[in-house]
């Protein structure tokens, strides 16, 4: 359908096109960049048909050369998010205490008498959660199909509001309790107010890139912490496993909701730019080049976009569908961001028209990852550090497993060049390594440490 590697690698979308004429048009408008990308071959000297073939080779080379850089651009924020979650879990005991409260989407309790009953309850919980996510995704697809962008925007805005003010207030309160810091309400109000407002501005409007990235990482960490606290033990692991399977199906099956969403977005040639996708570079002149060339662009977003010089990649406040399913769900804050993650992931990957300005170097092209992925990776590592008796060994093992899964996912993306979900490989590795390290490696390493043997 379209090339998803565009968004993880520096292959410019205009080169990766199924339509030769479209490519030709793009080469005319951005000649300097095309010269850079095509290794100095004059773009006009080649007929469109040949372009498609030679594109492949050059794409491959660029892919490999810059793929590593983009993998690292994803490693760093994912690592930071995990570090924040693990640091919080280890120091603030609030997030590991089970108060007996559960989310309304996991109604069955796990403190039952028999193991069988517990297993059944947790499976039902996971089933309900996935069902809710499926319904939410379908609602989202319907809303998107019927162009109810305002609804989605508003939804997003309010869920962000909740997260940035309410959850961070709770977090700050718990941190103060842990370290026994006395704080008056006035100072607290000022701090939270500033934090929240700056966050809303950075995420929904314009702001410095690093600040925006920091806010996205912080809110992903907050969501992951909420999940770690409110999901009971077995339910959490089952949900992680189920979400990976759901993700796989939703993205790869022809009738999967995410695939439909992606295809719709591609048809409209819209840059569905959710307010909450982590982007490693600034996206400039969003959709400008496309809107000038492609006739089938929806008229609604075009004129407004040309006036916007996005300083942050999420500068899509009022015009086209700059929604994130992520926030759709997070607004309810019990719904799995999985839904959002997949959607946002698809949205990253379906940015065929997101194009940097001609002066931008290939290496400046950024890479994007949905916040749902951040949330689930951090949730897995956070749970590993919270509940594993192997303690740090398990945490480190899960961390490495997730990073390697992410690396493999990006590699597969470069090879297959089609929509691939980011959750399954990493979560599978993470789960395998969690259970294996906790049950097999931990006793071995403990025995070695007791005797001070080294391997």
């Amino acid at each position, binding site marked *: 359908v379209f090339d998803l590697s565009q968004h993880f690698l520096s292959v410019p979308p205009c080169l990766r096109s199924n339509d030769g004429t479209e490519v030709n048009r793009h080469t005319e408008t951005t000649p300097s960049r095309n010269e850079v990308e095509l*290794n100095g071959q004059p773009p006009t000297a080649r007929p469109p048909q040949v372009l498609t073939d030679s594109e492949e*080779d050059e794409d*491959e*080379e660029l892919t*490999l*050369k810059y793929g*590593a*850089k983009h*993998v*690292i651009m994803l*490693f760093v924020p994912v690592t930071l998010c995990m570090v924040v979650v693990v640091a919080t879990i280890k120091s603030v005991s609030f997030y590991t205490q089970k108060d007996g409260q559960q989310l309304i989407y996991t109604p069955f309790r796990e403190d039952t008498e028999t193991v069988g009953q517990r297993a059944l309850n947790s499976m039902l919980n996971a089933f309900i959660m996935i069902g809710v996510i499926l319904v939410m995704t379908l609602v989202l697809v319907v809303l998107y199909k019927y162009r109810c962008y305002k609804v989605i925007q508003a939804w997003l805005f309010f869920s962000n509001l909740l997260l940035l003010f309410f959850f961070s207030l709770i977090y700050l309160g718990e941190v103060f309790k842990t370290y026994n810091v006395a704080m008056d309400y006035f100072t607290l109000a000022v701090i939270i107010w500033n934090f929240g407002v700056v966050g809303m501005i950075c995420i929904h409007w314009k702001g410095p890139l690093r600040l925006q990235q920091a806010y996205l990482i912080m809110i992903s960490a907050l969501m992951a912490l909420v999940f770690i606290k409110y999901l009971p033990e077995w339910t959490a692991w089952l949900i992680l496993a189920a979400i990976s399977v759901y993700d796989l199906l939703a993205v790869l099956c022809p009738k999967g909701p995410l695939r439909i969403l992606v295809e719709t977005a591609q048809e409209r040639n819209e840059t569905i730019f959710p307010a909450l996708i982590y982007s490693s570079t600034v996206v400039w002149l969003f959709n400008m080049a496309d809107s000038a060339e492609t006739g089938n662009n929806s008229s609604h977003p075009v004129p407004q976009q040309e006036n916007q010089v996005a300083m942050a990649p999420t500068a899509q406040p009022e015009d086209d569908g700059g929604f994130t399913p992520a926030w759709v769900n997070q607004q309810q804050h019990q719904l799995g961001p999985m839904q959002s993650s997949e959607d946002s992931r698809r949205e990253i990957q379906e940015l065929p028209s997101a194009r940097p300005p001609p002066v931008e170097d290939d290496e400046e092209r950024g890479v994007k990852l949905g916040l749902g992925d951040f949330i689930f990776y951090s949730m897995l590592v956070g749970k590993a550090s919270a509940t594993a008796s192997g*303690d*740090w*060994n398990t945490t*480190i*093992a899960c961390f*490495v*497993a997730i*990073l*390697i899964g992410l*690396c493999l996912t990006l590699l597969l993306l470069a090879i297959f060049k089609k929509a691939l979900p980011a959750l399954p490989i990493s979560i599978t590795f993470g789960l395998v*390594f969690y259970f*294996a*390290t906790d*049950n*097999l*490696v931990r*006793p*071995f*390493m403990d*025995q*070695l*440490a007791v*005797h*001070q*043997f*080294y*391997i």
Partner: protein
Amino acid sequence: MTVAVFFGCTFIAFGPAVALFVFTIARDPLRVIFLIAGAFFWLVSLLLSSLVWFITVQISNKNSATQQTGLLIFGVVLSVLLQEAFRYGYYRLLKKANEGLLALSQEDTMPISIRQLAYVSGLGFGFMSGAFSVVNILSDSLGPGTVGIHGDPQHYFISSAFMTLAIILLHMFWGVVFFESCERQRWWALGAVVISHLVVSCVTFVNPHYQGSLIPTYIILSIMAAWAYLCAGGSLRNLKLCLTCKDKDFLLANHRPR
């Protein structure tokens, strides 16, 4: 006391390795990826060896302490052999990947040489090995607690830190020598690496008599350091030129005046 011990032992154990990472690896994304992949390979080898050990423990007599120690020794030896096997496996994988990269890229040179890969993969193995050996001990050293209250050795933390430092650096040197010997088909060198790894692991069986384990380990560390230096293309002449700031190639490459 406890925080001081924690920081001291952390810096002893991980200081040189982190410095190496920061100065030589952190800037190049390809190297970071291969470092993490190396760590992953070590982890998988550990997983397999602990699986085997776990199975043997389950079918053995759990009450007999000597049998358990014997099984543990067996586990250690098996783990060492599996680590080296996975190092070889990683070498083969890297060779294949490098060939693929070379075939696809239009440039004549590979983006990363096999020697750099040897260094990076060795360090990856070392990081993971060191982390698994010592991180739990470090977190316990934050306290509260008393070391050796039941007559156990007093110098548990600091000896662990030094041993971990040696192991991390050794993995790096073993990686360099291993890959070089695979490249040159020098199987005796390969065997020597495996044997030295076994020796280093086996001398830890005499712990807590740290003089019996730490001293041989550090001797082997220096020998391997010199060997790895020679494998990487170093020589006494190079060393002298470098230390007296007269190495013209190095100075030119770093744009410094002679």
